[in-house]
């Protein structure tokens, strides 16, 4: 275990942490940009969790935001109604949300490939309807307003301003560190095996369903933590904050940045999360630009922004050799044989 922890503290990660904190400090003079940055940090956390599911395991979970919503409503309910500390309420709500997530996901975890994505889309719809319908727990589509920010235990004050931004930055970093540790553990290897070939994974003794359940649970934890932080950071929670479109946009960050690469989703979140905020005055063009950007990336950079750049950079030193060799043989293009 210690080995994995040690490998989690890589120069890359430290650099990322430093950059994130620097960015937070630099923009903290402007509360608007700080807010957008805070949302971006939560998006990074969510994208890291989604990457674990989609990128490493090949499970496209479109119920992600719904699970985040369960945790958000749980946390808010425990804090505002029962007077719990955020730091007690959040873990309870996150665990609850992850358990509900696994129970709802159970039938679809047996589904192969893309069918899982489609059925998770239906699960998300059920959750969204539930958020509106169970008005006693969620206040329906009115939403819950004036949600207090997390308290700093034993001090009587709560996180606000730059403190909250740093908390979110830390959470984003922690999520990346956790993803790194998981990706480099035997568990992570099993997940990759499942993504690459479920039948082969089983043939070499990997319990596919159990590992899928486990990763679904872990991914739901990310969703839940993000949900609790999101609701308290925005100060408002409503079914619209945790709907199918939210799930899709988190998933898009991963696909846009590059599935299965460690940094890809971070890049995806950094680019896509601020776009809607930055284009708030351009209401007529915004969706079209967003859509065109997505199409452009999938057509021109099928591996995602980061994935494609990475492949490009890796080829660079060998470019000459590659060009001179082009006439002979068939070099590996990394495509997958399918039977």
């Amino acid at each position, binding site marked *: 275990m210690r080995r994995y922890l040690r490998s989690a503290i890589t120069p890359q990660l430290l650099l990322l942490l430093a950059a994130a904190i620097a960015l937070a400090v630099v923009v903290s003079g402007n509360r608007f940009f700080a807010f957008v940055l805070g949302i971006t940090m939560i998006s990074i956390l969510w994208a890291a969790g989604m990457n674990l599911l989609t990128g490493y395991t090949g499970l496209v979970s479109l119920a992600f935001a719904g699970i985040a919503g369960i945790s958000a409503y749980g946390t808010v309910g425990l804090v505002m109604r029962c007077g719990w500390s955020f730091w007690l309420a959040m873990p309870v709500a996150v665990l609850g949300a992850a358990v509900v997530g696994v129970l709802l996901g159970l039938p679809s975890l047996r589904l192969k490939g893309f069918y899982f994505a489609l059925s998770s889309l239906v699960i998300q719809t059920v959750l969204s309807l539930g958020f509106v319908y169970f008005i006693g727990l969620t206040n329906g589509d*009115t939403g819950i307003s004036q949600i207090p920010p997390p308290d700093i235990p034993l001090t009587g004050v709560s996180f606000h301003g730059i403190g909250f931004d740093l908390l979110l930055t830390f959470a984003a970093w922690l999520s990346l560190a956790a993803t790194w540790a998981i990706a480099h553990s035997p568990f992570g290897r099993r997940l990759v095996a499942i993504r690459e070939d479920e039948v082969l994974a089983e043939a070499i003794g990997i319990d596919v369903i159990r590992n899928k359940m486990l990763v679904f649970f872990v991914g739901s934890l990310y969703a839940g933590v993000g949900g609790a932080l999101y609701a308290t950071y925005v100060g408002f929670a*409503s079914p619209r904050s945790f709907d199918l479109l939210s799930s899709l946009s988190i998933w898009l960050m991963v696909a846009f940045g590059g599935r299965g690469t460690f940094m890809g989703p971070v890049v995806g979140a950094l680019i896509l999360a601020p*776009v809607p*905020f*930055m284009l708030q005055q351009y209401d007529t063009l915004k969706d079209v630009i967003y859509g065109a950007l997505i199409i*452009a990336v999938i057509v*021109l*950079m099928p591996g995602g922004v980061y994935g*494609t750049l990475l492949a490009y950079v890796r080829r660079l030193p060998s470019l000459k050799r590659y060009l001179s060799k082009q006439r002979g043989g068939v070099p590996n293009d990394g495509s997958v044989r399918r039977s």
Partner: protein
Amino acid sequence: MSRDTVTSGAWRQSAVTAFAIACMGLAPFGAAPAVAQSGEPITIGFISELSGPYSFFGTSCKQGLEFAEKKIAAEGGVLNRPLTFKVMDDQTNPAQAVAAARSLDVQDNVLALTGPTSSDIALAIYGYAEQNKVPFVVPVAAFAQLTKPGTKYTFRVEPDAVGWGYAAAKFVAARKAGAKLALMYTDNALARAITAGIKYQAEKENVSIVADILFPQGSNDATVQAAQVAAAKPDFVYLATVGAFDVTTTNQLLDLGIKPEQIIHNVGATSTLLGYGARSVGSNYGTFFDANLDNVTAEGHKFIDDFVQQVGRIPSYVENYCYNTAYIIKTAIEKAGGADREKFRDAMSSLNMVEPTSGVPISFDKNGARKEYMYYMQLTGIAAKSYTAKRLFYIEWAPETLPVYDLVK
């Protein structure tokens, strides 16, 4: 992807990346801050639903507001300074709305916020406004929580939805003593509040509820429910469904032999009234402003005529409230004598004016709630692009008449 894409497509890839980075980099400059200085324009932040599922209402509101904005500019602005509205799209998404509020507050240092037409969006901005002490004038959101006890900076122009229900029950009782009423409504905050008000007041008015049907959002057919309602033989059917489903439900009720005179629409917006079609003539609807009212002022008529000419439809209460909101803000600034948030808030609190378009008085209680009122109209005719209606009923009440905060949480 094959390798020839890697070589020949390299420039394309860089182009896309450059485009992405450019989008990121350029976007903030679009939102360059405009600092309000003495002698400079007074800026109000207008956040509304210009895209997403509520775009129709947000856009309608914006259109109403723009008429007033132009008129105020022609009249010489306010305190000899131009009054401008900075428009932001919240995409019908609460987080976007909060971000927009923050942007307008921090970047543009606006005097006040206004704009949303959807209750949950308004409530999200409400949280920000109260916490950061930014005055917030809500033109078209009917949720009572916006003015719950202890509210300081938020002012609600539209009567609250529980009150709509109260007015509806009073209206039904006035039409027929001991009437049987059926309710059909969509699962949303507005409809839940309205029906809570109806149920509360119906008991007092000896109106019995014979059917109570709640539809989930995204419903598309109401035939079976219409049959259930028809089987319950009500005197009136109160509809609080939304958008296209509202029209579908109305038509299916009519198909099943319910008379138009028995139907009460919660509220009448022009496009929906036209959508009901000619067979709906005779049905009733609630409203707060209507082109067919006798008390429309000369300015009101001019607004209606100009609006019809430019937009091609009759303005309804939404456009009217957004038009009036600009004047409410203007009057409060004049009263405050400058662009100071606290003084503006105090001026709003003690405001005493009438709506320029209809002469209905406007004043707010200590929580920012308005003296409430409602009309009930009957459709008398529908043409291709216009309709006629007559007033059947009018009621006024004080916000504290109803235990609003017990009825909705």
